[in-house]
């Protein structure tokens, strides 16, 4: 048995968890001593360390036989909790940490007028640690603990400005719906536990007697789909998202839209492709059922997301609805069920984290200057904030899928995957492309409104602070770079999706000798 009994957690996780503690103490100490900038500097350092840890993890995983690394804590699986790390986990970890770095740098100026900043940075690091843990988990127990860590810190972050009515309402709504999602996942997990005898992913993949499972397997799938669907904002479980994302502080909106909802999608994909789909042939009408369920929800999600986004006057609310639509596009890749489709799905997760992160950061910079989120009052803002407007325009064009941005690359792969022989869901491609074209109907008016001539001259408005501009510019450049030269990310996402489908036997045999 090739087992690594480790005293350490995976490196990115150590760095983020330790960072959360250190930043909290440094911040509290700082408040006693007067103002300082230690906590901000420390959080950037710890996230940078996590990024380095991510690279080390990548090297470790690729050097392992079968490309899977198992770290177990306390005891060996199935009894002990374990991290089972393949390239897909590394890819998700990298996306989380990468976006987190930008969000934290941006927070320096954006959050400077708020109090309780020590808690803010600490919770942000904890939320990232939760997502990293979810991505690395090898059994449902570990998965659920980190899932709740992510959720609990994000509830507090959404309702961070507790003296305003918006965050209070949105926070409570987010909490009730998302916690319900967590509980449904837990209920579904208990059914899988009842069928398999333990909660390790690999054991669940081979240990369930699917011949007799029948209805119970479908019930477990429904519960898990509802639970992950609430977190991933799949229509009709999306209603918390358009409230929670606009009301959160902008860097948090960027994190939530950019990567937290995709973590829900990751959970769904992991369960679907490790536990359900490999055994679906044993269920009555199994493979078609799973694929068509995902396909139908994909159509619903992108269509309703786009239509609702068209009706919005609030820029952050519009972007929140556009996130729902983008999750719908990602589900196209999941519905196709092939390596190529998953490549598109995870490439779009990374690209979307850049694009939607940038869109929220840039619109946050405008809100920071003019103090309103209403699109009508943003008319002519491009003349005062040219760099921010440029960045926002690039991100919106990317979200619409214009060629030479990275959004085009991943959408091309996503919609192509549904046409592949053996998948044969041409209607999904058709609806997807139509939706993608339709979405320009609300991206372009924003750009037009920003660059039209302002009605009256105002001398008070000026460009966003430099510390906000730096992350925004880097992200805008990356969007273009990965649109013209997508190879590095494409290769990473390719090996990640291959690890999930073709590497499944290795994934299982690493735990079960």
């Amino acid at each position, binding site marked *: 048995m090739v087992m690594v009994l480790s005293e350490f957690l995976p490196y990115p996780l150590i760095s983020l968890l330790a960072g959360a503690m250190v930043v909290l103490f440094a911040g509290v100490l700082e408040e006693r001593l007067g103002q300082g900038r230690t906590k901000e500097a420390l959080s950037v350092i710890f996230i940078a360390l996590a990024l380095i840890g991510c690279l080390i993890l990548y090297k470790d995983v690729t050097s392992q036989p079968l490309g899977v690394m198992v770290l177990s804590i306390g005891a060996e699986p199935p009894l002990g909790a374990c991290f089972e790390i393949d390239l897909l986990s590394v890819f998700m970890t990298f996306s989380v940490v990468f976006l987190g770095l930008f969000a934290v740098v941006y927070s320096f100026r954006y959050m400077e007028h708020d109090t309780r900043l020590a808690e803010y940075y600490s919770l942000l690091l904890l939320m990232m640690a939760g997502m990293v843990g979810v991505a690395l988990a090898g059994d449902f127990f570990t998965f659920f603990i980190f899932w709740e860590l992510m959720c609990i810190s994000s*509830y507090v972050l959404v309702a961070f400005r507790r003296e305003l009515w918006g965050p209070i309402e949105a926070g409570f709504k987010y909490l009730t719906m998302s916690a319900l999602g967590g509980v449904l996942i837990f209920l579904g997990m208990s059914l899988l536990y009842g069928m398999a005898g*333990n909660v390790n992913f690999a054991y669940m993949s081979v240990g369930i007697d699917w011949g007799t499972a029948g209805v119970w397997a479908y019930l477990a799938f429904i519960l898990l789909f509802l639970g992950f669907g609430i977190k991933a904002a799949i229509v009709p479980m999306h209603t918390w998202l358009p409230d929670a994302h606009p009301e959160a502080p902008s860097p948090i909106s960027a994190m939530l839209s950019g990567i937290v909802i995709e973590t829900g999608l990751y959970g769904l994909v992991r369960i679907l492709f490790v536990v359900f789909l490999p055994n679906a042939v044993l269920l009555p009408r199994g493979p078609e059922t799973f694929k068509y369920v995902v396909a139908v929800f994909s159509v619903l999600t992108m269509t309703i997301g786009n239509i609702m986004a068209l009706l919005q006057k609030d820029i952050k609310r519009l972007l929140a609805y556009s996130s729902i639509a983008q999750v719908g596009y990602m589900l196209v890749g999941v519905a196709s069920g092939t390596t190529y489709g998953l490549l598109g799905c995870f490439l779009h997760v990374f690209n979307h984290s850049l694009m939607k992160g940038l869109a929220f950061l840039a619109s946050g910079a405008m809100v920071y200057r003019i103090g309103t989120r209403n699109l009508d009052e943003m008319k002519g803002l491009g003349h005062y904030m040219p760099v921010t407007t440029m960045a926002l325009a690039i991100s919106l064009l990317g979200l619409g899928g214009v060629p030479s941005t990275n959004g085009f690359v991943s959408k091309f792969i996503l919609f192509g995957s549904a046409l592949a022989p053996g998948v044969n869901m041409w209607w999904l491609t058709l609806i997807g492309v139509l939706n993608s074209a339709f979405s320009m109907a609300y991206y372009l008016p924003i750009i037009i409104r920003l660059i039209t001539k302002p009605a009256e001259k105002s001398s008070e408005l000026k460009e966003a602070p430099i510390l906000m501009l730096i992350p925004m510019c880097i992200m805008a450049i990356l969007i273009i770079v990965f649109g013209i030269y997508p190879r590095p990310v494409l290769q990473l996402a390719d090996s990640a999706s291959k690890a999930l489908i073709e590497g499944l036997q290795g994934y299982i045999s690493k735990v079960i000798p």
Partner: protein
Amino acid sequence: MLAIHVYLTAVLFLSLIGLYSMAFKRNMIRILLGLEIILNAANLSFIAFSARFTGQVDLLGQSIVVMSIVLGGCVVAIGLSMVLNAYKHYKTLDVRELRRLKW
């Protein structure tokens, strides 16, 4: 020992009670109670299944439940603190009053 169906029926009813409470109650604290009831239904389900396989009780299911009780406590604590903020702001616990966002 009772058959597993008895426990699973209880799980079903507890979940339905919890969902009803979350969907139709107006008091914010009752909504959180509904959440806690569904979580306890899931816990009961784990406990029931943990006595199913071997002759003795499976430790894994039990330890998961202990952990989930802790996590459920955290979620409800955060929820109650939000209720407190909402109460300070609106002077009511009626969730229908929180309608300025489009629910």
